[in-house]
């Protein structure tokens, strides 16, 4: 099971990298850009057997204990659609 933990700076915490990126976008002519916040994506692969609700709970614990620093950051968890079963390939393949 694949999951993504999205870590972003909390609202109100100054994000100088985001401001620099926003400036860059405006210099490229993207005048509609009002603000940019830069965060990070942490991809986590879990045991396939794990139940989805337990996975969410465990990922929340991972985020709280290590992946995000809750003093300055928030997090969000997304599950990635599993790719088609590779054993069910086109017939005739070995």
């Amino acid at each position, binding site marked *: 099971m694949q999951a993504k933990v999205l870590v972003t700076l909390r609202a109100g915490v*100054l994000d*100088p990298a985001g401001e620099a990126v926003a400036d860059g976008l405006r210099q490229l002519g993207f005048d509609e850009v009002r603000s940019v916040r830069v965060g990070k994506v942490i991809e986590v692969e879990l045991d396939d057997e794990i139940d989805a609700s337990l996975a969410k709970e465990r990922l929340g614990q991972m985020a709280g204990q*290590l*992946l995000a*620093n809750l*003093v300055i950051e928030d997090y969000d968890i997304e599950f990635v659609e599993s790719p088609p079963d590779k054993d069910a390939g086109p017939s005739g393949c070995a």
Partner: protein
Amino acid sequence: MKVAVITFPGSNCDSDAISVMRVMLGLDTKAVWHKEARLPDQVRLVIIPGGFSYGDALRSGAIARFSPIMADIKRFADAGGLVIGICNGFQILLESGLLPGAMLQNASQKFVCRMVQVEAVSNTTPFTSDYQRHEWLRIPVAHHEGRYHADEETYRQLQRDDRIAFRYGCRDNPNGSLGDVAGIVNAQRNVLGMMPHPERAVESLLGSDDGLRLFRSAVRFAKSREG
């Protein structure tokens, strides 16, 4: 009395700290690798030096807390032992929960390496008793993630309990830290974290010797407890 200086993979100010304690102050100083499970016997002061432990993976200081030695440092600190975290050492203490708050990238987005004016705000800590209250010191900084942040309640508590050991001059704040905070102590006052590098300000030849009194204060305090 014995001093321990911890080296993590990526620490780079450990030799400077050892040199101050061993050569300038003449103390029995042990270099301790982070994989050690225990501090040497009779250690009275632990220094977590600056650098880039684990290449700043995830966040500065976030991975060092899993090093075996950290459990013993926590035990040592809980028992009242003196701990100084400098720069990356401060970041490690924050990420380990030994000090409150967190570090963010400098507001300028730049790595800042220069001498700054630092105010000794509180002199009622084991580390700052040799300073006058509100004395201005010259101590260099060298960091990219030094913008101290804490929630409002935590910051109020730090102020109320006189736990802000050092502040930058308000016109000379190199990183945009909350309240110009440069260094804080824990509630028990035996753990200090600071971004400026006192070990780089120990001889007038280096531009300042204002940092030396910090180590002298800590050593005197530790010795007085040894009886």
